[in-house]
């Protein structure tokens, strides 16, 4: 099964309340995915041209300030680590790829869950309500969020297997369903196109595919259009970019999705009940996204 949710704020005045609006949506999808949960939040720091990577440690009490100090010294800039539970956001005035490369090369004991200018990804095992509380989601501000509640059927219940997946700067993907051609596609993307993967998860391959397409110059909508032909399997995808949000269901449409939109926000969820908590939802336009049709919002979409 699995539940997915997404919320994109059209009205900037709501941004301070993003997490408060989003947390009950994800909590409502607990019955579809009670074993682990993850979410992506997009929040610009503003001002400086800064990169951030979200990192996760399996070691309790990890010394994040030491990591920031070391990163600053070795990269020749000021670096900051902001911890949240077993994750931390490491930020510095460098290129996002350079920061990610540094963490992966110098600290293999850490796992990078995201990199970019606005994106942060947090994920962990446990009930969605516990995960939401652990990371203080209700207090988060930002422009858009995407979340996933997992009921693992094909692989173990681990933090690594939880969604969202990020393979390129500021791009993330959550997925309800399963892909059947991910094995060969992963090999091709890794060996021929240099896309990096962390897991054997099928969803990570879809994220890597979109990263590759965008790297070739496609918009997120064009990349998803191409994915209809190249990705084989069952899926409802919700995709985040730095300033955009997209939804796609496979042409057979076995996996559910509902969308709602008004002047202030656009939201998607596996089931309407996850949208029922949104302000003025009863007056919003509510519809089921059509199979094989790409829906996109936001600037670069």
């Amino acid at each position: 099964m699995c539940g997915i949710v997404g919320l994109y704020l059209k009205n900037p005045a709501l941004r301070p309340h993003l997490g408060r609006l989003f947390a009950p949506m994800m909590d409502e999808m607990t019955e579809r995915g009670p074993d682990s949960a993850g979410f992506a939040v997009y929040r610009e720091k503003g001002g400086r041209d800064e990169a951030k990577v979200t990192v996760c440690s399996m070691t309790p009490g990890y010394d994040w300030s030491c990591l920031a100090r070391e990163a600053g010294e070795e990269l020749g800039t000021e670096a900051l680590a902001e911890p949240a539970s077993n994750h931390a956001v490491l930020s510095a005035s460098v290129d996002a790829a350079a920061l990610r490369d540094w963490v992966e090369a110098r600290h293999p004991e850490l796992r990078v869950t995201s990199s970019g200018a606005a994106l942060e990804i947090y994920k962990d095992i446990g009930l969605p309500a516990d995960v939401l509380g652990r990371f203080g989601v209700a207090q988060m501000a930002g422009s858009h969020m995407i979340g996933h509640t997992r009921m693992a059927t094909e692989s173990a219940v681990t933090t690594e297997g939880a969604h969202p997946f990020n393979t390129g700067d500021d791009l993330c993907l959550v997925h309800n369903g399963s892909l059947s051609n991910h094995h060969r596609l992963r090999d091709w993307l890794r060996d021929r196109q240099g896309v990096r993967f962390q897991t054997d998860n099928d969803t990570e391959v879809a994220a890597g595919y979109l990263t590759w397409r965008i790297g070739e110059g496609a918009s997120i909508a064009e990349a998803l259009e191409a994915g209809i032909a190249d990705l084989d399997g069952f899926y409802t995808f919700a995709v985040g970019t730095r300033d955009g949000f997209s939804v796609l269901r496979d042409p057979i449409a076995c996996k559910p999705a509902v969308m709602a939109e008004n002047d202030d926000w656009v939201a998607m969820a596996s089931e309407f009940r996850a949208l029922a908590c949104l302000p003025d939802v009863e007056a919003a336009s509510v519809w089921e996204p059509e199979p094989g049709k790409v829906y996109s919002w936001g600037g670069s979409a």
Partner: protein
Amino acid sequence: MTVETIDLDAAGVRALNRRLQGRDGPVAGGRFVVTNAKGRHALAVGLTEAMDVRIRGHVGYYCAGMNQKADVTVEGNAGTGVAENLMSGTVRVTGDASQSAGASGHGGLLVIEGSASARCGITMKGVDIVVGGSIGHMSAFMAQAGRLVVCGDAGAYLGDSIYEAELFVRGRVESLGADCVEKDMNGEDAARLDALLAEAGMAADAARFRRYGSARQLYNFRVDNAAAY
């Protein structure tokens, strides 16, 4: 007659269904309004008496399943499997319905004023379904009896592997499924369709619909096809 209001935020789904199924006292002839649906699943299922139930707001999966005699109206959209296995009575959705609307229904009438998505009327066994808008792909798959009326368009593979049901479509049919063919529509067929449209409260001219049904080529094993097995 007084109207009994049931607030789902206070009562919960189990209490609602217990009340509407008559397990807390007589319900025949009653009028009920259900508030705060909020996409909850399995609302007003298994009703067996004639009564009027109005559900305010969008509902989740399997609303009004297995209904007998009751008239259930959803004032909003319905999730997967609305009115599945409908036996009798009427279920009306004022908005859109998700997939598998009216699945395996044996009788009664399902009216969807908006559109229905994929697999509408899948394996229908005698139910009448009238859709004001369009329907998605694989609708009326393995339909056995009853009528599916679509005022808009039908998606791909309409009536795939159909046995005996009548399909009427006013708009465009993207494609017909295996063994589903267009059939002549005579004056008697149009009169029956007119009556059904009137019963559903749908303002549409029967003369503008096309009629589809089974070519009856998949009923029996054909030795010519032996190599395919």
